């Protein structure tokens, strides 16, 4: 608390310094200071708002000191006690000694609210854009009334930033919508109709209710404004659903891309794919801890370092699996399924033995926390945006690697005709090994992404394995394009249905749709045609 109070005082001192640069402000009179610090709430608040609206910097210092409980009153004299024990006169700022019989000035919750609003109001005219933005956000949360109108008008006159202007205009309209002047109300409603905030919709709704607006023309305008705001909000919600759908789709895509290589191209059904992702996520966790203890200054960069680390670790585990188990089972998919399920159990238990059965904490770096507010009801989190971008990059890399490189050519060749590829000199066993560990490495990359949006625990992979196999099945074997379309499509479809029917029914509906879909297109969205379809 102490440090918070001193921080507040420091902020006010900074404000004081800024105010000193501004045109000479009217000084706070001792009578005003007394009126603010003592008396009944109504008169205190009125005095406070009047003093702050006049742009007096000493009034802001006094308000902050009152919030900090650092004000003493004796008769008409008001004293501010600094964090270091020095005492100044509230009005003049001159150093004084406080008499022994001075009382602490106290403020109840209502008074504190008014003080905070007043402080925010004072900050509205700060020269620092960030301070002004924070002040507007804070003020918008408190109940506004006409006593703050002068303040808002003053800030609006000085404001140059477009977004902040609209915020202030909305605030002014919020105040004026209850004005006694009918034309002002109409103007305010017209202003509010341009908004896309749920709070504004609430306000308009309230004005339309009992004890709200009585004038017929204003009511009609309110009704129209409410419709406009709601319409915009609905679009926001649709946008949000679409975004979460794309976001889920991109996660599925990352998960399924690895599968598209191991299962789609090589025909190896790998039930331990989820566990390879889990290994990627745990690698991220380890990298995070290393950064925290060795280079705490560069902590924000740990995710970048985790990407190659997770790829390599998962690819190495994948290579071990291929050499140790999977190569003996090529061409026997059901056996591969069971053996890799066994591997997944072993890997899960191994992680439990090493890291414990509890989830481990992976922190977002600062540049991935928070989000952009597109509309008041649509906030796009940075980590989700980053994952969409990451999925796109990985997809592009995989596509280029498979379609344009020698390695990709070999993989495709071995997939289409193993014996012929072998005859022309391709080392098919090496290609198998490389392709499988490449797919495993992609799974590790998926793990890095998942560690940024969800829990990291031993059963992280289990939740995604069913979905990701469905993506590959729907997309069709041997196709990257199919995997992409199916991943994004299933993600969006799932979220759309979730909005209508709830999460569980949506899952079931998606499953039923997939079964129906496979009736029509047994080999997926993008079926291979011609000879390779028979392979």
């Amino acid at each position, binding site marked *: 608390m102490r440090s918070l109070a001193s921080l507040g005082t420091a902020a006010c001192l900074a404000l004081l310094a800024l105010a000193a640069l501004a045109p000479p402000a009217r000084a706070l009179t001792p009578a005003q200071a007394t009126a603010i610090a003592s008396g009944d709430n109504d008169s205190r608040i009125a005095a406070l708002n009047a003093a702050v609206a006049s742009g007096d910097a000493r009034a802001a210092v006094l308000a902050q000191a009152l919030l900090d409980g650092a004000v003493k009153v004796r008769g008409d004299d008001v004293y501010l006690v600094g964090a270091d024990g020095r005492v100044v006169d509230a009005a003049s700022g001159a150093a004084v000694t406080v008499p022994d019989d001075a009382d602490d000035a106290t403020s109840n919750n209502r008074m504190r609210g008014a003080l905070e609003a007043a402080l925010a109001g004072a900050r509205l005219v700060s020269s620092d854009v960030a301070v002004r933005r924070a002040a507007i956000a804070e003020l918008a949360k408190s109940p506004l009334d006409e006593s703050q109108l002068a303040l808002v008008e003053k800030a609006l006159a000085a404001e140059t930033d477009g977004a902040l202007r609209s915020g202030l205009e909305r605030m002014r309209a919020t105040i004026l919508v209850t004005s006694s002047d009918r034309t002002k109300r109409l103007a305010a409603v017209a202003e509010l109709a341009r908004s896309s905030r749920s709070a504004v919709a609430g306000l308009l709704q309230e004005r339309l209710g009992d004890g709200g607006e009585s004038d017929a023309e204003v009511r009609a305008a309110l009704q129209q404004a409410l419709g406009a705001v709601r319409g915009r909000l609905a679009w926001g919600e649709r946008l949000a659903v679409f975004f979460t759908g794309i976001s889920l789709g991109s996660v599925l895509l990352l998960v399924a891309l690895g599968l598209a290589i191991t299962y789609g191209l090589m025909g190896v059904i790998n039930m331990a794919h989820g566990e390879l992702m889990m290994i990627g996520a745990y690698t991220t966790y380890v990298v995070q801890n290393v950064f925290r203890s060795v280079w705490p200054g560069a902590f924000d960069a740990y995710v970048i370092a985790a990407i190659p680390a997770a790829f390599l670790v998962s690819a190495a585990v994948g290579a071990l699996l291929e050499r140790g188990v999977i190569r003996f089972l090529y061409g026997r998919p059901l056996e591969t399924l*069971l053996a890799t399920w066994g591997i997944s*159990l072993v890997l899960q238990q191994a992680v439990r033995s090493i890291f414990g059965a509890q989830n481990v904490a992976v922190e977002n770096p600062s540049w991935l926390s928070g989000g952009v507010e597109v509309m008041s009801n649509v906030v796009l989190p940075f980590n989700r945006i980053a994952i969409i971008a990451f999925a796109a990059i990985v997809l592009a890399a995989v596509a280029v690697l498979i379609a344009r490189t020698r390695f990709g050519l070999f993989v495709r060749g071995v997939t289409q005709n193993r014996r012929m590829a072998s005859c022309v000199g391709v080392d098919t066993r090496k290609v198998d090994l490389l392709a499988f560990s490449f797919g495993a490495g992609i799974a590790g990359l998926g793990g890095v992404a998942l560690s940024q949006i969800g829990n990291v625990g031993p059963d992280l992979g289990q939740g995604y394995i069913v979905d990701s196999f469905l993506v590959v099945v729907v997309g069709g074997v041997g196709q990257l394009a199919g995997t992409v379309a199916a991943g994004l499509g299933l993600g969006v479809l799932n979220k759309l249905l979730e909005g209508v029917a709830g999460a*569980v029914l949506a899952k079931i509906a998606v499953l039923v749709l997939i079964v129906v879909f496979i009736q029509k297109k047994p080999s997926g969205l993008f079926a291979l045609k011609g000879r390779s379809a028979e392979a």
Partner: protein
Amino acid sequence: MSAVLPLPAGAPRGPFLGGMRGRVGVTVALAVVAVVVPVANLLVPAGSVFHLSDYAVQLVGKIMCYAICALAMDLIWGYTGILSLGHGVFFALGGYAMGMYLMRQIGADGQYRLPMPDFMVFLNWKEFPWHWALSDSFVAQMALVVLAPGLLAFVFGYFAFRSRIKGVYFSIITQAMTYATMLLFFRNETGFGGNNGFTDFKRILGVPIATPTMRMLLFVVTGCTLIAFFLLARAIVESKLGRILMAIRDAESRVMFTGYDPLRYKLAIWTLSAVMCGIAGALYVPQVGIINPSEMTPAASIEIAIWTAVGGRATLVGPIVGAFFVNGAKSWFTQALPEAWLYVLGAMFIAVTLFLPQGIVGLVRGSDGVLARLLRATRREAGSAR
């Protein structure tokens, strides 16, 4: 896709109950289940070496239910080549049908002293959802034990087999079905008791369920059901139906070209297999005293496959041996070395697929089985000693 599995040794076996050896085996099994175990548990005093503890009876009873599942899995996977990852659902459906009947038998003796089951009182429900409308009647619920898994399997199988989904595709789709059903049963508002499922049973057919006699009765019924299903499975395998199933497993296209419609055969065995699992589930619940959605996890379904694989696919004794072996190991490990169990289970999955495609039974039986090799070795030694 050609399977690596050989035909079971001596497939065209003719005489009733598989000849002399078969008849002796079945009689011994029946005697053990219906006479030896009850006597050893109920009549032999607790101090005696021949006494069988209640714990052992419960464990064996439970594993016999699992063995029925493994046998059902063997029919569809070992003999027909279709790997189901959804048999846990059928098992649980049978279990839930029985469980709801047992919930109704609690009557007003629950925590809330009300005629509705506790979980419904908790949700403030006044009447039963449609699927539990007849749950008060034992006959209706026993019909449900058969019908619920049977219908689900029939509808699901019809659409899947009709569009020729096979191999791993089918396995994945059944796993997705398992996953979706599990989510459904986890919900409170679907009327399956949510997370906790059904438990705290008191009576069955008005008789207290926790008495030694009742427990033994359930054990005997389970044992006899297992033997009956074993005989049924053998009858199927040795019939023409069985031959066609194996032909579908080994070369489905050729079966089609010779004029058979695989859909019917697959659908028949798939539905029967599901019903067997449902009955196993119904026998399992009163013995274990609880049914909850954890029986429906994809992992539970895939474990059924490993019982069959460990014991030996495409043999009839194999799945039963496998169920006892794996679950015996599980109950030993989870007590002695709980940390190690998943390693062991995982290793079983890997080892069986890599080194023991015919399971334990294949190890013992057949010309290159351990038993045969041992026999040959001893004979050779006997010959050289002479």
